[in-house]
């Protein structure tokens, strides 16, 4: 589905990405973890077409896509959820869904999506700025689902949410994956991400360092020590 | 009225044209005498500045056609102030500091000219205005000269009009700048002294476009006669709006409104209006000027063109008599007595203004026609 080979790039200053190589197979759920400032968000931006400078190869189903605008990528079925509060405060919940319906070529109807996100139904007329953080994140996922994407790029969806809401978010991601959507997830909450993902990559200083099945990496002492808060073991390099 | 009159005018125009062509070479020999000109060439008051520039251009062409001033061609540097005093000040500084002119002709609006007076005093430069008439200018500087009589004369002239109309109660509408306030104050005092009563003095803004509430207030005062002082644009719009509102008093205007553009703007409401005109326009000198102007510009002169024409000729005459330096020009201007210009006979008083006299006009069927010698 998605393949990055030797991707470098940044914001105009020093290079932030210096060699990112990763692959997301069709229908696969891949997590990208790593320390703060490693460049995880920057990788998603490079794929989503919002990073000012990108070198290397980014291919979607074998077609090079670097340089394409978010709008062109949306037409190819790529939906990007940036880090942070991804709603338009003055638009209502329904208007968010209508906004996406007007943009995505294979959009579902708002009604079809509301059946999958029943919690949003009573909030349809409310301005998104007045929703709780969890409701806003659900709205983002509903909006993404409405586009019926083939690839979802999602950046820190659990950030700042209560544990119960984090579970709702991961349930929604699992549901999307169940419908054949490929997912590339960036998460600080590495433990939760690795538990949910089929495969994962570890990013350090702008380079993909480790790769493995989600559960393998959970048990990898290097990962455990660096990102999962495990006690430092003598076998660490 | 002011247009070219048939064959005689065309012949005169042709004569001037030939003279201008022939003389161009004659005046080219010696170094030019350069003088400055500052006026509203663009912006809301460009109507005035453009017509003054044309009067000046005509005078310069004729002077140079006659061989210039003792063989020196007269050259004018034109500067635009857009009715903005600070632009006028910087234009003046350039003319005096860079071009070293001994005399500046300008500006039109009293407000702008007043801003130049201190500079003229400080730099010992002659400042001669064609049509600035604010009483604040009178005696403001030994270097200031005004070719049109000041507003004191105009306000007093309105009182004469009121007497001729047997009017004892009237309203005044004045534009809120030095010019309008000057005329309003003089009329207010002189009319009361003559036993009249001003029902309301209503100001309206320079650059304004909507005067309906002002008109409403004047109408509510019960005035049947309204004296109005302003610029063409505002006053013309104001009369048109009064007409739309069904308010039809006897209007009496100031000299600044004696212009076809005003009547065109005011529309039917201008009919019957009485307008002043500074100077005398039924003279041989005016007819010669008018014919030459029309021949050169293919349009009739406005009532400001002739004053600018006279201003330029007075300056040239003063250079010829006093020499090409500011002190000499100033002395020669101050000594001017009984100069017969296109706009009337000019004698400078001690306060720098010429002694004035007025003609009264009336608007009939959209035309401004001579009515009465005031």
């Amino acid at each position, binding site marked *: 589905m998605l393949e990055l080979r030797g991707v470098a790039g940044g914001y105009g200053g020093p290079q932030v990405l210096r060699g990112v190589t990763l692959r997301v197979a069709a229908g696969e759920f891949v997590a990208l973890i790593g320390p703060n400032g490693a460049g995880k968000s920057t990788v998603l931006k490079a794929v989503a077409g919002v990073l000012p400078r990108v070198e290397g190869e980014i291919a979607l189903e074998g077609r090079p896509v670097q340089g394409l605008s978010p709008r062109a990528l949306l037409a190819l079925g790529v939906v990007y959820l940036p880090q942070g509060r991804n709603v*338009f405060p003055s638009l209502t919940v329904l*208007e968010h869904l209508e*906004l996406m319906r*007007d943009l995505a070529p294979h959009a579902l109807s708002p009604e079809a999506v509301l059946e999958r996100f029943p919690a949003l139904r009573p909030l349809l007329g409310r301005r998104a700025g007045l929703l709780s953080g969890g409701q806003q994140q659900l709205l983002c996922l509903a909006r993404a689902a409405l586009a019926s994407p083939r690839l979802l790029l999602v950046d820190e969806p659990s950030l700042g949410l209560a544990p119960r809401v984090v579970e709702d978010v991961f349930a929604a991601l699992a549901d999307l994956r169940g419908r054949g959507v490929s997912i590339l997830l960036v998460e600080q909450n590495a433990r939760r991400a690795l538990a949910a993902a089929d495969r994962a990559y570890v990013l350090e200083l702008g380079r993909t360092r480790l790769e493995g099945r989600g559960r393998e990496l959970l048990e990898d002492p290097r990962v455990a020590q660096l990102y999962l808060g495990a006690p430092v073991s003598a076998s660490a390099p | 009225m002011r247009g070219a009159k048939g064959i005689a005018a065309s012949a005169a125009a042709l004569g001037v044209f030939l003279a201008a062509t022939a003389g161009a070479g004659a005046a080219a020999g010696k170094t030019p005498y350069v003088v400055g000109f500052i006026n509203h060439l*663009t912006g809301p008051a460009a109507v005035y500045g453009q017509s003054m520039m044309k009067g000046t251009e005509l005078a310069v062409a004729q002077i140079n056609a006659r061989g210039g001033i003792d063989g020196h061609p007269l050259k004018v540097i034109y500067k635009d102030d857009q009715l903005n005093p600070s632009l006028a000040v910087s234009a003046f500084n350039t003319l005096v500091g860079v071009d070293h002119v001994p005399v500046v002709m300008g500006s039109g609006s009293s407000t702008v000219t007043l801003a130049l007076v201190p500079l003229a005093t400080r730099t010992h430069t002659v400042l001669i205005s064609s049509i600035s008439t604010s009483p604040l200018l009178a005696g403001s500087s030994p270097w200031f000269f005004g070719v049109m009589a000041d507003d004191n004369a105009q306000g007093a002239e309105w009182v004469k009009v009121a007497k001729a109309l047997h009017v004892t109660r009237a309203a005044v509408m004045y534009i809120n700048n030095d010019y309008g306030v000057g005329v309003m104050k003089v009329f207010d005092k002189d009319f009361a002294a003559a036993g009249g009563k001003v029902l309301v003095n209503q100001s309206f803004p320079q650059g304004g*476009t*909507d005067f*309906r*509430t002002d008109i*409403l207030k004047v109408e509510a005062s019960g005035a049947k006669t309204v004296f109005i002082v302003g610029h063409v644009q505002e006053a013309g719009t104001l009369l048109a709006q009064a007409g739309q509102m069904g308010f039809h008093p006897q209007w009496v205007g100031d000299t600044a409104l004696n212009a076809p553009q005003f009547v065109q703007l005011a529309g039917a409401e201008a009919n019957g209006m009485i307008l002043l005109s500074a100077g005398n326009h039924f003279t041989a000198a005016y007819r010669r000027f008018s014919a030459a102007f029309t021949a050169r510009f293919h349009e009739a002169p406005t009532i400001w063109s002739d004053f600018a024409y006279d201003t330029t000729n007075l300056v040239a005459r003063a250079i010829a008599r006093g020499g090409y330096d500011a002190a000499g020009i100033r002395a020669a201007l101050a000594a001017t007595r009984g100069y017969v210009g296109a706009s009337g006979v000019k004698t400078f008083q001690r306060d720098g203004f010429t002694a004035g006299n007025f003609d009264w006009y009336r608007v009939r069927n959209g035309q401004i026609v001579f009515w009465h010698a005031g």
Partner: protein
Amino acid sequence: MIALQILVYGLVTGANYALVAVGYTLVYGILKFINFTHGDVAMVGSFLALTAIGAMGLGLPAAVGVAVVGCAILGMAIERVAYRPLRRAGRLTPLLTAIGVSLLLENLVQLVFGAAIRTFSPPPYLAGTVVVAGAYVTGVQIAIFAATAVAVAVLAWLIGRTALGRQIRATADNFDLAVAMGVPTDRAILAVFALGSALAGLAGVLFGMETTVTPTMGISLGISAFAAVVLGGIGSVPGAVVGALVLGVAENVGAWFLGGSWSDGIGVLVLALTLLVRPEGLLGRRDPGAVKL
């Protein structure tokens, strides 16, 4: 009824300001800067109508069409040529560009039409006057009220109820997110300039029928409309309309009690008072930004 008459005049003045003010507020909402060329776009609208009626001999409705379409195109051209290249250049740069474009428009129009003051008369079917509760209202004034009401209603529908309107509001709310989501933000911004400029063109025609037309008329029109925007709450469309009507009435009440020469001063006073007492304006929010409807 003099009070009612003053109210009518105030509302007519205000309706014209409203049409111009809406354009300021829309552009501010989406780009966070004051488009100071806007008053001059209205001026161009007046001259387009003048040309349509005078030189081309068209009727008023066709002249309105020419002015509205012409100004919409002009507004889009200004955005495309003067502002878009500077979109990431901070706030001062577009302001300086705006001054340049304003001077260019004023001088171009003066070059083509001359400095003379012009008027265009209303068509015969608007020349009449009706008396409402003792106040005189002319046909032109009724047309101004009606045209303003229709234009503002159409705008409210466009912004509040259509796909384009959602995209405009999304772009105004969060530009970066809108880009990331694939919202055609350039088109939304162009649309805002087109809509605002079209209304300014309409204002230019209506204002021209009520008053006079000069190449510099856009300056004071722009200042008044800007004061109305600040009064109503910058970024808020209903705020711009309410602010304009309040300012129009205040100017005319002031003209009655203090003299017409005070009306500009009242605009400045209202501006200063608003900034001191309630900087977010009558209908604005503390955190300006979004286009609100």
